[in-house]
């Protein structure tokens, strides 16, 4: 027992030691505050620590206290509007019209209506022919209203109101900011048997205990022969937050790392693009619904087209077809291709890369991109106007459909998705086209991630100048990111809720 008490004393923090002596006689927290000169938070904290050490029992009661609110405080100084109105009526020699009374008292519309209503209800006045007539004796009118008395009596505990006070409370609570109810905690405390013993033993342990070790103590060795206060190693400590990358960027970095490991080169480009590169170069007919303003962000501007040779070839692919294709057979318009848009997919980067490769002798390579794309979309939990896509192309004479599936399988395996499947799909610029799905074991569900395929000759030949199979894919990243971070609402991606950003788990696939 003695040993236990000693140990407890060793572990008492200065705060606890400061409070403990007063617990025997103090009646409430306020008294402790006065005695110790600590603030309320510290005292409450100290009491809780002592409770954890079983030195004191606490009984926390919540009380609802009625206080004057902003207007209440004001009215306490300058009277309730009904009092002011009544005074104006009393002072006036003849009955006032409503307008006159309102003007005299300088009331707001709202205040005046309420004051008038209150006085009518109390049967102090009556309004006849737009004139206010006094219906009460002067003495009666001079007496304090119940509401005034109530207001002066505040703060009061809601539970302990008299009938009369309750009546006033109900009247005033409906009015604008006269009174408000605040919840206050009242803590009752009592020393336990153990607490009393500790308190008795406390003075005996005269010896000074070391709190924080200081450089001086180390230098002088003054710690020798003294005791270190024991910490409560289980007590809660305040949270700290470090600097972090945004979780989307963490994921993007990870994806980039995978492509680099797989030997791909990074493609970069602008977010604004001409329709030519975003659509026409990708064999998307000029009347294709995806090109409508309804789906794509347009910017009022006229862009420039690349060198004539490429434009001519793209035009021919659309109008009459190239490399044995029939083409879409319509009149292709330059104006349409010059329109400026926010890119709708990173595939536009692949188109540009192919055009750049056409100038090289060795038209071969593996390229990737990760980037923000846009669509004219509403904003709710399932929709957003910006999204992230990752893009890849493999330009190789020997590339085939099985390789396409192989690259995708390997990429998603590295992304942590062991199970992947491919379904037929449709895109204007690939044939065959593939829809990629990965299996999410936790939800026993397939997650649709987007498209892939082999670029059509109508895309490759005009850009590259010859037919070489180009494997291409552009799955969305957001669904994977949302799945990993368990985000249900798409808006959370870019809402930047700092509290969440500080705590979001680290991207570890």
């Amino acid at each position, binding site marked *: 027992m003695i040993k236990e008490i000693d140990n407890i004393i060793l572990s008492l923090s200065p705060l606890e030691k400061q409070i403990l002596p007063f617990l025997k006689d103090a009646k409430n927290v306020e008294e402790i505050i006065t005695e110790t000169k600590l603030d309320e938070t510290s005292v409450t904290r100290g009491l809780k620590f002592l409770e954890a050490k079983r030195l004191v029992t606490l009984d926390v009661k919540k009380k609802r206290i009625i206080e004057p609110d902003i207007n209440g405080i004001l009215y306490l100084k300058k009277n309730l509007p009904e009092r002011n109105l009544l005074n104006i009526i009393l002072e006036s020699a003849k009955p006032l019209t409503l307008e006159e009374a309102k003007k005299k008292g300088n009331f707001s519309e709202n205040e005046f209506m309420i004051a008038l209503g209150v006085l009518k209800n109390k049967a102090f006045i009556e309004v006849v022919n737009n004139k206010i007539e006094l219906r009460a004796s002067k003495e009666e009118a001079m007496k304090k209203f119940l509401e005034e008395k109530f207001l002066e009596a505040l703060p009061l505990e809601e539970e302990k109101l008299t009938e009369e006070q309750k009546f006033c409370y109900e009247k005033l609570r409906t009015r604008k900011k006269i009174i408000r109810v605040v919840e206050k905690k009242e803590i009752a405390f009592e020393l336990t048997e153990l607490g009393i013993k500790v308190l008795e033993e406390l003075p005996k342990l005269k010896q000074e205990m070391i709190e924080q070790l200081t450089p001086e103590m180390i230098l002088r060795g003054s710690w020798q022969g003294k005791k270190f206060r024991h910490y409560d190693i289980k007590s809660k400590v305040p949270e700290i937050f470090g*600097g*972090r*990358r945004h979780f989307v*960027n963490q994921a993007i*970095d990870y994806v*980039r790392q995978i492509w*680099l*490991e797989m*030997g791909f*080169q*990074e493609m*970069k480009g602008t977010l*604004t693009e*001409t329709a030519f590169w975003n659509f026409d170069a990708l064999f998307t007919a000029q*009347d294709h*619904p995806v090109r409508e*303003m*309804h789906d794509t*962000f*347009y*910017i009022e*501007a006229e*862009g*420039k087209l690349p060198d004539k040779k490429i434009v001519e070839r793209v035009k021919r692919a659309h109008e009459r077809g190239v490399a044995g*294709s029939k*083409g879409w*057979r319509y009149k292709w318009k330059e104006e349409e291709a010059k329109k*400026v848009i*926010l890119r709708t997919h990173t595939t536009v980067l692949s188109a540009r890369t192919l055009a750049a490769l056409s100038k090289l002798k060795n038209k071969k*390579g*593996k390229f990737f991109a990760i980037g923000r794309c846009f669509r*004219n*979309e*509403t*904003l709710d939990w399932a929709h957003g*106007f*910006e999204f992230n896509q990752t893009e890849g192309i493999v330009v*190789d004479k020997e590339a*085939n*459909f*099985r390789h396409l*599936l*192989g*690259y*995708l399988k390997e990429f998603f395996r590295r992304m942590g998705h062991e199970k992947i*499947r*491919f*379904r*037929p799909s*449709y895109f204007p610029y690939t*044939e*065959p086209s593939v829809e990629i799905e990965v299996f999410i074991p936790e939800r026993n569900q397939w997650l649709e991630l987007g498209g892939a395929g082999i670029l059509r*000759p109508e895309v490759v030949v005009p850009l590259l100048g010859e037919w070489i*199979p180009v494997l291409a894919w552009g799955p969305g990243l957001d669904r994977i990111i949302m799945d990993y971070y368990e985000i249900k609402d798409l808006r959370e991606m*870019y809402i*930047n*809720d*700092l*509290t969440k*950003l500080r705590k979001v788990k680290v991207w570890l696939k």
Partner: protein
Amino acid sequence: MAIVKFPRKEFEKYIKIDKKIEEKIAMFGTPVEYIDENEIALEIFPNRPDLLSLHSYISSFLAFIGKRPGLREYIVNKPEPKYEVNIDRSVRDVRPCTACAIIKNLKFDDEKIREVIDIQEKIHSTLGRNRKKIAIGIYPLEKIKLPIRFEARRPQDIKFVPLDFDYEMTALEILKQHPTGKKYAHLLNGMKKFPVFVDAAGEILSMPPIINSNRTGKITEKTRDIFIECSGFDLNVLKKTLNILVMMFAEMGGNIYQMKLNYGLKKEITPDLTPEKIKINLANINKLLGLQLKEKELKNLLERMGYRYESPFVFVPAWRVDILHEVDIAEDVAIAYGYDNFKPEMPEIATVGEYDRKEMIKNRIAELLVGLGFLEISSYHLLTTEEIEKLNEKSAIEVEKSKTEYRFLRNNLFGSMLRTLATNINAEYPQKLFEIGTVFRKNEKKETGIEEEERLIIAISPGNFTEMKQVLEYLAKIFNINTKLEEAVFPIFIEGRTANIFCNEKNVGVIGEVHPAVLKAWHLKMPLTMLEINLETFYPK
């Protein structure tokens, strides 16, 4: 994207739905949206409008699972006397082309009428580009006197009772008052004359692409024979569309009859269901798909996708609109082969990965700032009108017809940062934030007329000029760049506590303490210091 809903009962008369079939349906290239007791809903991609009707879908799917492989053939009867449509010169400037057919011996019930209307709507909204490119009209033959004339008239000379109405209206009244008229009025905008189909008795059948006549253009359960027309601007497209429709009606049990189209001296006969002959090369297909198919296997696979194959020719059904090239046939071979039967293979090509230099530097900057305890944020590239007004940004570029309040491309990163701070006044302080992002401004010299620049913004709240300058100098030192501050005036910053950042004589950014009036406007309660700098500063020359 078109979602078709087939009645489950009808569907299961031919194909029993179970897990395995559901899988097969997806692998046919028609993902299952849902299946319940009453319906099976499938997604039909825009390249296959020929699958939009129940019976044509079932025939194609049965072939796919090997039950009725090969090219489907239908009897096409020659035009009977008066099966003619005379196309007047007057339509040339308004809606120059039509392709027509007659179908006989159909049996309509509620279900089928609904199906026909549904197919019509689906084709209108996909292939037909909302009736702009193709408008389809279907009429009960018994109400019509052949031959038919397709002509253009002045709007005041067009008067008939439109569908679902019981009184006569003029063309202009229809466009102003009829719900369908209002919806598609824009398609006739600015035209002096409107196209109409008129029968031999002078009765107006319809005014494409708007609406049919209630008297002559409404299919009922009593209807057995029908007249179909597709009108638009490209006869080839219309012929294909007509082929799809007559194929679907034939699948419902109807008999196809051709019609003579008199385009002045030029005569056409539609529909023509002769399959198109395309030469393919087995080696090409094997190379593209990474397979080693034999002729016999290829034939089998092609037949399961509804083709006929007589090496080296593929006979493509006349209702397929998506076969532009050999690769389109290759895809169908792959689908028949089964995407799930392909063995994925990663070729061993040794290539070297290459990290974009700028991306690498951006990451290094982010790492340094994180080391200093900064939190990275990431925001939209668009700002709202309200934000633009608060920032007094007159030169921000607007996107057209945004569906949200986000309408302007940001031309600096302050708006995004202030928005973040404003939405986080209840989060714990200090808030030390940064963002790396793109900003936009007009520049005629650029390809898109817009110059994009990558910038870094840093914010410390509560924070002061000194603290921000420390961060700047830290970054400058580590990246070995020389920066110099010059006193400046900047709208959101306090005068005397604002500086432009210079690097190699170039103004690359701005640093300052935010003015309390700005803080108030954004409902911020804490002092704030910000820095914005062009990332080019950090990139090696």
